[in-house]
């Protein structure tokens, strides 16, 4: 993870994850709950694309673990999903970087859907699956919020010189 000696701004990365975790549990009206984007996944994918040498599977796993604690889900559920998402984002980072924003959003849709599918499977195995079309809504809303998050995070990254 530390093959670049001049890596700094770890605080910014940590803070961004903390804010994403907070955004995942801020109370919003009931009818909007289904559409809450997966902020943690988005931030994780962003850092995986921008700084693949620093943020990767391990980070994904740890953040997912915290999300599990926070959401009170089965321990390891979000951890696995986010670790796999991070792995895919890491594998694809060179390509995703070159894509125009629209295409990036589609990739995001794919990645978030995949992580949600994993969560649904594991939930299904442990007996709490919720079969409902609105379950996939966060993937769509994540896709639509990706351009904003991308610009925001890029500005923040450049401003604080995180590399």
């Amino acid at each position: 993870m530390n093959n670049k000696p001049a890596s700094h701004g770890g605080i910014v990365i940590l803070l961004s994850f903390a804010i994403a975790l907070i955004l995942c549990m801020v109370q919003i009206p009931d009818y909007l709950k289904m559409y809450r984007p997966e902020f943690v996944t988005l931030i994780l994918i962003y850092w995986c694309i921008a700084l693949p040498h620093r943020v990767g599977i391990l980070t994904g796993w740890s953040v997912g673990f915290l999300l599990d604690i926070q959401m009170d889900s089965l321990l390891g559920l979000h951890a696995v999903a986010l670790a796999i998402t991070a792995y895919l984002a890491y594998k694809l980072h060179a390509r995703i970087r070159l894509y125009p924003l629209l295409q990036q959003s589609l990739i995001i849709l794919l990645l978030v859907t995949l992580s949600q599918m994993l969560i649904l499977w594991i939930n299904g195995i442990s007996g709490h699956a919720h079969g409902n079309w609105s379950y996939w809504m966060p993937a769509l809303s994540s896709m639509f919020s990706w351009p904003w998050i991308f610009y925001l995070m890029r500005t923040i990254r450049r401003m604080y010189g995180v590399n």
Partner: protein
Amino acid sequence: MVFSIILLITDHHTNMLRNVRSFFNLIIYPLQTIASTPANIGIWLNEQLDSHQSLITENESYRTNNLLLKAQLQKFTSLQAENIRLRSLLKSSRKLKDQMLIAETIAVDLDPYKRQIVINKGQRHSIYAGQPILDAYGIMGQVIHPGIVSSSAILITDPSHAIPVQINRNGLRTVLYGTGAANYLEVQNLPNNADIELGDLLITSGLGGRFPEGYPVAKVINIIRDPGQPFAKVIAEATAHLEQSREVLLVMAQENKPQLLSEQITKESGSSDE
């Protein structure tokens, strides 16, 4: 990857990760506090912007309410004394008072497909898993994962929750399942000819030894008796204000385990101090 799968299986089948969970809960707690601030600010603003007049009227209504409740309580004390006397005559003991602890809910959202809340009391306040939670109007749910300073609790409306109840009118016992929808519960296994009516109050039966007996849980609002189905479909609405209550009560039960009949008899014949 393998480690995660082991973790998943361990957590699903055993209770071993309880301490891990409560420890990491401590890390999450500040985040939860921050996340609940917008909601708290809303409540605070609401309180600040309340006009003087409305506060006075509210205060007045509380006062009359208090008077009424006190009057009822006078009657209740004499009834309670009578009840204890009668029970001692019958040589049957039953706990009449439950100790309560007040907790506040932390305004955070969890998984939208589950019905869960977070409360601001944890193991430090001797909260334990399975502890019943209620508000002023009825049973709300139970603690599932006690953290150190905060715990998560499952509401009775969660689809994976079931609570043993009885009908207040005739004592018919059944089990009430959560539906996942806010405030609605379901009785799944009452036969079509069971004596249940619209408006029946369902109270806890105390079976299972987890919930104290006699607290209101839900009111029947819809009964579908389909002759083609083996069971009637009964929908009930929770009496507790599940989605609104900020203050909740936790029942501190000392010893709520079901006893063997023989054990109970020897105990009661041995000592009759209750």
